């Protein structure tokens, strides 16, 4: 028997990483996994390698979640996003170590990125119930009508998350989708997916309804075209694709007149506080008219 030995060198419980679709954590439909390593090539974990069918399932989940999430009050959405920040804060140490491992950073650098990611959720949480009054309008039309314009969420958004910035970049591209009331299918950084996976766990336990955010680990080059051409996806953020692939994706997206974000060639520094442009990209202006009479 080896009782004494066990206490000295306990074998850790290895985690099997899965996808996050519709509030659940399924394996890839394809059964594929791929090894995740740190920048030095040290093995970190196996991640699920999402397939086009996982994209399909995630879009179905995102569409199903859209009426509820877009119909929720802006106050409620703000509460949920703030709760995400709280949960992230609660698992700060785990994120710091994953960001450090994934991006090959010193703990102090990783800490500041995680803190910025938490603050970004807080920033967007505060926008949910203000954006309509900032972007909406009462239109002074020349006639006996009350005309007003309100921003409304675009729908289902396909997001190819940044490849380099595993957490802050991810949060910076996902939070504006959710804050405006759209739902998301995110393809995480392929090489650095661990913070995205942990973020999924945070989302799953933070009152965010299932399907509002779906996180796939896998290759943007493989999954991007399926999102770009999908008839039930309304907008596409090609940040995580290569500049060459972005052109192909934008062409694919034209087939259904998707809104495609224009993004800088090189991945930007995500640390400065953003402006409204990302939030605005996922909002449609709806103008309503009614006569004024007795």
């Amino acid at each position, binding site marked *: 028997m080896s009782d004494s030995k066990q206490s000295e060198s306990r074998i850790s419980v290895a985690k099997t990483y899965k996808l996050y679709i519709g509030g659940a954590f399924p394996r890839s439909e394809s059964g594929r996994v791929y090894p995740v390593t740190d920048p030095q090539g040290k093995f970190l974990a196996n991640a699920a390698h999402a397939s086009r069918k996982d994209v399909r399932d995630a879009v179905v989940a995102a569409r199903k979640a859209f009426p509820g999430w877009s119909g929720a009050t802006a106050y409620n959405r703000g509460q949920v996003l703030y709760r995400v920040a709280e949960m992230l804060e609660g698992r700060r140490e785990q994120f710091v170590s994953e960001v450090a491992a994934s991006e090959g950073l010193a703990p102090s650098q990783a800490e500041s990125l995680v803190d910025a990611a938490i603050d970004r959720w807080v920033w967007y949480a505060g926008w949910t119930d203000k954006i309509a009054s900032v972007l909406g309008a009462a239109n002074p039309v020349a006639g006996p009508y009350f005309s007003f314009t309100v921003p409304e969420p675009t729908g289902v958004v396909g997001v190819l998350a940044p490849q380099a910035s595993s957490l802050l970049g991810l949060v910076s591209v996902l939070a504006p989708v959710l804050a405006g009331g759209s739902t998301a299918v995110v393809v995480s950084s392929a090489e650095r997916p661990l913070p995205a996976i942990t973020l999924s766990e945070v989302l799953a336990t933070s009152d965010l309804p299932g399907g509002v955010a779906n996180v796939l680990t896998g290759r943007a080059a493989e999954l991007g075209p399926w999102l770009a051409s999908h008839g039930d996806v309304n907008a596409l953020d090609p940040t995580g694709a290569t500049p060459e692939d972005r052109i192909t994706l*934008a062409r694919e997206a034209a087939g259904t007149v998707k809104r495609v974000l224009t993004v800088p060639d090189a991945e930007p520094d995500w640390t400065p506080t953003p402006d409204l442009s990302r939030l605005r990209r996922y909002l449609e202006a709806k103008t*309503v008219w009614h006569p004024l009479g007795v």
Partner: protein
Amino acid sequence: MGIFEYAPAPESRDIANLKDHYRPFIGGEFVDGSGEPLKTVNPATEEILAEVGTASVSDVDTAVRAARKAYDTVWSKMPGSERAKYLFRIARLIQERSRELAVLESLDNGKPIKESRDSDVPTAAAHFFYHAGWADKLEYAGYGPNPKPLGVAGQVIPWNFPLLMLAWKIAPALATGNTVVLKPAETTPLTALVFAEICQQAELPPGVVNILPGAGDIGAAIVEHGDVDKIAFTGSTEVGKLIQRTVAGTRKKLTLELGGKAANVVFDDAPLDQAVEGIVNGIFFNQGHVCCAGSRLLVQESVAEEVMEKLRYRVSTLRMGDPLDKNTDIGAINSAEQLAKIRGLVESGDAEGAQRWTSPCPVPDRGFFFAPTVFSDVHQSMRIAREEIFGPVLSVLTFRTPDEAVAKANNTPYGLSAGIWTEKGSRILWMANKLRAGVVWANTFNRFDPAAPFGGYQESGFGREGGRTGLEAYLSV
């Protein structure tokens, strides 16, 4: 013959100052385009109105260079308050030449003079007035402290509202400090070229506005041109997709205003007589050549009979004929090609089992005309319920509950506009919230104003025209 026959009351075509020949406008001058001249036709008579010189691809390059030069040397440097004055001048000149523009528009497009006179031309002037005021106030538009123009805007517009669409495009572009190369539609270039004269009259610096008549290849050349910073297109979804594909991967900012298949939803508690007016206005305004036309009538089953009876009576009072006659309600279809397209879709409605009713109004012997037509017993699966007809053809479907109305209304890849008719306020707001469309008219239809953003969801395009929201399309934000 009725006992009260309205004698013809035609507006004189002399007012249009029609010339034999028109030319492209580049760098502040009318120039001989090196494209093959086109002959523009009066669709009401099939007579040739004028010969119009067109641009070639090399003229596109010349025009873009003129626009770039004007942008670099004059327009982007001019204070907003000065730019505003040019827009105000243009607005005034449109008003002063409104009769001429209205008659010319009706001649070239076929739309009734009462619409060009009371709607197109005054609204075009209003767009310039509205945007003139923005030119020196852009820092208050909500896009940051110092929003910048994009540069040279390439604009391609359709034939259904030739001057008005030009105004929707040029007014915000100039107000935000961009310069413009615009291609009017092949079949309706004339008012755009009178607008070019107005630019001269207003002493607009040369090159700020360039107008290039031509066909689709010229539009494509503008879209593809490497020194154009912004593309704005209004037209079919089919062409919109091509343009989006072309622009993909470039730094060009793009806005698209494309097709629609709007649902006009009538509940049983609606103000029925005004609903009938709204239905008629929704689909027969401008011969149905309206991207936001209420081409699908969704009527609650409990009032379907009553609405149909009222509708048929009302439609039978519409007067079709000479667009220049002040009493004409329905003018000519813009081209033989469009007429053939309408006929084809109407035949598909017959073949698929919808019930066709056509207004008994007399149809002129000459010209491209199509009598107002209403299909009942239409189902979502029929082509006439899904495809944009862009003609005076209404498809009537029924529904039983608000949820069903929403589901059917939203069951289209388009999302430009929608109508709601009910006297219940809470239902209006509930419906307005549920309908996936960029413009929702409740107890009214087809209202437009420069202060009210207009544009679509999904395959009806992206970006907005009008209001504060519309400025974004022409700013580097």
